[in-house]
């Protein structure tokens, strides 16, 4: 069973549990960044976007209270991709009113990935909601637990939680890498993001690399035709 196959509910719950592992490390890092448990959990409830949250506490941990404006900016920039997910999900979900307000909050990497990996329209819609809700629940519980465990487990890296985060994203994008163009775009993005990290402020490398990779991919796909 990969993300793209298997029963929808089990996929949604699996994705939620896996994200929870990542949430534990977020909670633990929130404690080390100097936030209290309410502030850490508030980030998970109201920001609810792993990349942005890690950017926020990452900048805060390295720069202290004085770096709060930079923490806000980098989490905002890292959140851009959710807007693109919302954009590509809009014709599938056709949200309006209260569901739009709620659905927007649940628009994240995981819900978008599961939704777009399904074939039928009804599974795409269900995949979005099941996964969004499942991740929301596990993510927030895990954040609280992670904060409490923070001091007792010591360094989350010791348990490989940082690698779990990267592996989860890798597994989510995997089915899209299996064709030539998708694999190419992914590789360009990965390599250029890494190269740009020492050169650009936090949050920017991911965005710049994505723009670069999409540009290359579009050029190549035209050239192939």
């Amino acid at each position, binding site marked *: 069973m990969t993300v793209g196959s298997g029963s929808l509910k089990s996929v949604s719950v699996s994705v939620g549990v*896996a994200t929870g592992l990542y949430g534990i490390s977020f909670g633990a890092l929130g404690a080390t960044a100097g936030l209290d448990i309410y502030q850490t959990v508030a980030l998970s409830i109201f920001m*609810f976007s792993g990349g942005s949250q890690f950017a926020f506490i990452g900048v805060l941990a390295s720069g202290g209270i004085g770096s709060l404006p930079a*923490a806000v900016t980098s989490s905002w920039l890292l959140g851009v991709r959710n807007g*693109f997910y919302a954009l590509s999900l809009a014709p599938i979900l056709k949200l309006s009113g209260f569901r739009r307000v709620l659905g927007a909050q649940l*628009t994240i990497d995981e819900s978008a990935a599961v939704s777009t990996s399904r074939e039928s329209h009804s599974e795409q819609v269900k995949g979005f909601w099941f996964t969004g809700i499942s991740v929301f629940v596990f993510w927030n519980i895990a954040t609280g637990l992670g904060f409490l465990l923070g001091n007792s487990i010591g360094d989350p890296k010791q348990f490989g939680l940082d690698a779990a985060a*990267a*592996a989860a994203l890798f597994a989510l*994008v995997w089915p899209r890498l299996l064709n030539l163009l998708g694999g190419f775009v992914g590789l360009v993005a990965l390599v250029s*993001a890494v190269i740009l990290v020492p050169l650009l402020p936090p949050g920017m490398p*991911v965005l710049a690399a994505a723009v670069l990779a999409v540009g290359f991919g579009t050029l190549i796909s035209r050239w192939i035709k």
Partner: protein
Amino acid sequence: MNTWLAIGVAALAVYSWKFIGTLVPARFLESKRLLQISQFLTIALLMSLVGVQTFTGGKGIEFDARIVAIVIAGICLKLKVPFIGVVLIAAVTAALVRLIF
């Protein structure tokens, strides 16, 4: 800047992307080129994050146990190991590499 204020502003800022995305008319996505761009963008953003989370730390490039973990994760994906299995194996791999070296 007050910490709570920063959390509030940042949460709203992140939410604004999500909400604005739902407001863009569907016809913007009807063109095949835009559809392809949005699909490429998902791949590119996710792989950029994989890159940043695997090969960097702080403000620089960093090579450590995460690389071994991501290679093992790739092999697991190739072998069609379930999602949660891939994530757990990657975490255990990184933890073991750090324990041994």
